[in-house]
């Protein structure tokens, strides 16, 4: 009896202890797995559409892969070829020029525009919407409209001829073509960065402006000493975003300069070169990947440069 009475005891207590111990384990397990399960769809998308192409591009840059032919490892041959490819240097020159011209314009002009449309006057909503319209317009439509306007027989040349200035070859001169494309990029980006600045300006305390005005500061002084320092971090953000976008420019130049990249290819940008080299049935995927790797490295360097400049300012 003793033994039989004593025997079941552990049997009843053991599962109780086990279930007590299992409950926190289950919770712990759920705490570990649940976030991953929630993140899984997003991670899968990132893995398939970003991580895999990224890693694959880096691997391909060391091969002679072509569109229909599996490549073999060629070491740094693609990068060495880049050094002797005139078109690569033209692309690097044009993409760098794009950053140097477009970024300062897109840091300063939208801020001035935001200051203008920030004022609460009747009808200002119309202007805010009007300035934002190019952002939502399709780049292809925008590009074609500008091509029509800048054509030798287009609106701009008709006006220039009417005032006796003569025709200007906006679409036939390599530099005018590149600067025209830059103007389109700036015109199209103004509204987007204006909205970012409007949000930043809304956070600048009115008291600062009032105090500066009481101290006798004029509008320019107030802009330089109050507004600019208050939106400096936003300016850094705009500089970072616009420099990456400018270095990777494709559509504007492609639409205005055509698939050859302007006269004699002199307006080719690096991304256009990737498209031209790597696509089509005879596309050189390995070589185009090497150019893409260079673009990635330069883009990261640009970001680091902007962030470093910001940190220096903070100190």
């Amino acid at each position: 009896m003793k033994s039989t009475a004593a025997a079941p005891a552990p049997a009843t207590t053991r599962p109780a202890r086990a279930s007590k111990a299992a409950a926190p384990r289950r919770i712990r397990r759920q705490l570990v797995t649940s976030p991953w399960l929630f993140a899984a769809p997003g991670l899968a998308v990132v893995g398939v559409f970003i991580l895999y192409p990224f890693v694959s591009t880096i691997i391909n840059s060391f091969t002679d892969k072509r569109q229909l032919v599996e490549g073999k490892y060629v070491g740094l041959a693609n990068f060495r070829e880049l050094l002797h490819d005139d078109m690569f240097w033209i692309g690097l020159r044009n993409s760098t020029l794009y950053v140097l011209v477009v970024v300062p314009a897109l840091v300063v002009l939208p801020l001035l525009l935001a200051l203008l449309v920030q004022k609460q006057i009747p009808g200002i909503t119309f202007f805010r919407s009007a300035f934002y319209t190019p952002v939502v317009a399709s780049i292809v439509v925008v590009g074609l409209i500008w091509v029509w306007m800048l054509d030798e027989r287009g609106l701009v040349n008709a006006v220039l001829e009417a005032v006796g200035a003569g025709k200007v070859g906006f679409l036939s001169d390599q530099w005018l073509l590149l600067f025209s494309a830059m103007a389109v990029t700036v015109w199209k980006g103004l509204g987007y960065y204006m909205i970012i600045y409007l949000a930043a300006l809304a956070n600048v305390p009115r008291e600062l402006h009032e105090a500066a005005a009481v101290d006798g500061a004029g509008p320019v002084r107030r802009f330089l000493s109050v507004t600019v320092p208050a939106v400096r971090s936003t300016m850094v953000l705009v500089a970072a975003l616009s420099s990456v976008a400018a270095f990777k420019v494709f559509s504007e130049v492609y639409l205005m300069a055509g698939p050859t990249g302007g006269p004699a290819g002199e307006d080719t940008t690096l991304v256009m070169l990737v498209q031209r080299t790597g696509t089509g049935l005879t596309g050189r995927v390995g070589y185009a990947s090497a150019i893409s790797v260079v673009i990635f490295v330069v883009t990261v360097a640009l970001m680091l440069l902007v962030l470093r400049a910001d940190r220096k300012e903070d100190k």
Partner: protein
Amino acid sequence: MRHSRISRSPRRAVVAAALAAVMLPLSACGGDEGGSSDASGKVEGEITFQTWNLKANFKSYFEGLIDDFEQKYPDAKVKWVDQPGEGYADKISADAAGGTLPDVVNVSPDLVAPLAKAGIALDLDKSAGKYEKEYLPGAWKSHQVPGLEGTYAFPWYLNTGPLFYNKRLFKDAGLDANKPPKTYDELFDDAEELAKKSKGKVATLANVPTIEDFGRYGVPLMNKEGTGFTFNDTKGVELLTKYKELYDAKALDGQALTATPESTGKKFLTEAVAMNPGSALDLEKFKKDAPRLYKNIGITPQISSTGKDNMYVMGVMVNTRTKRTPAAVAFAHFVTDAQRQMSFAKKVAIFPSTKGSLDDPYFTKQDGSDETRVRIAAAKSLKTAVNYTPVLFSEQMKIELRNAVARALQGKQSPKEALDNAVKACDRLLKQS
């Protein structure tokens, strides 16, 4: 042990699921090597047929054609897909690399060459050689690739066209509008005269010379083995030098260096340039969009030093990876046979590549209209016409040549230097292809 195994298994499941999620879409890239080159079996099963931007205008024609085929072969089924004109080569390239290329594909000779080299286009000499006699010899040969044995697509429709010119602009420049240029020398002289008289306001041509212009001028484009380009020879340099003179005299449009076929067409339509190559299709466009131009339109044959006009060829290839080779070959032949090509030619201004079709009264009998005049002249010239663009001349090579021509016209390089560089670049691309 058991506990640890149980606790690890969901983690493994998550990892396995994630890996599967990542790998599944990628696994499609592997493609299926399958497929036989034997076309002699029963015509059965479902095949996919891909056309190049034809659905918008010819939906009913292709639906009727597919119905006819399915009636003739009740065990076969055809699924028709149409791809937009823009980026067609990229679409084919992605499908070929991913193993998802349709069974029967509408191609041009320059598209079929890399596919044949990659073993994706079926050799019709082996699988469907019995049909060769149905087509014009030149058309059948147009899908042969130097360095490879065989023919890799059925010839489909051909196209060519005259040179249109603006009689009003000719008259304004004091030229005889009824005597358009017939030779290159006359063309260059008239162009310079037009530019001089209009003080540089009216150019004669809106495009720089392309590879087919070099071919028509009598420049040898490739060596016989198909291993290197030769368009930098004396004749090539001579043509480019002439174009440089035209460019300097403003007889070539100022935007010619960045022109596309669409933009040159628009320049001619707006009477900004005096001459432009075209086809019977353009006459309709002139009538509708530019009535003033249509009133003054002049039509003259292509200028050629070789006596042979340029023609464009379309083809229909069979994918070697098809699982339904007999059905795919039978359908590709069905689409391109004399009866179907003739009926397609009556719907749109194209020309059949089948023997005897060009002798049909539709291509020989005048009815007094401009359209018929152009059609009859084009059909006549097609009997001896040549597709001057080498099948191995890729898009990248076209850009190399174009940029070299632009450098010569701008005076940055001499015509000889520019063409030497272009040949060097094209030869390098040829070796890498």
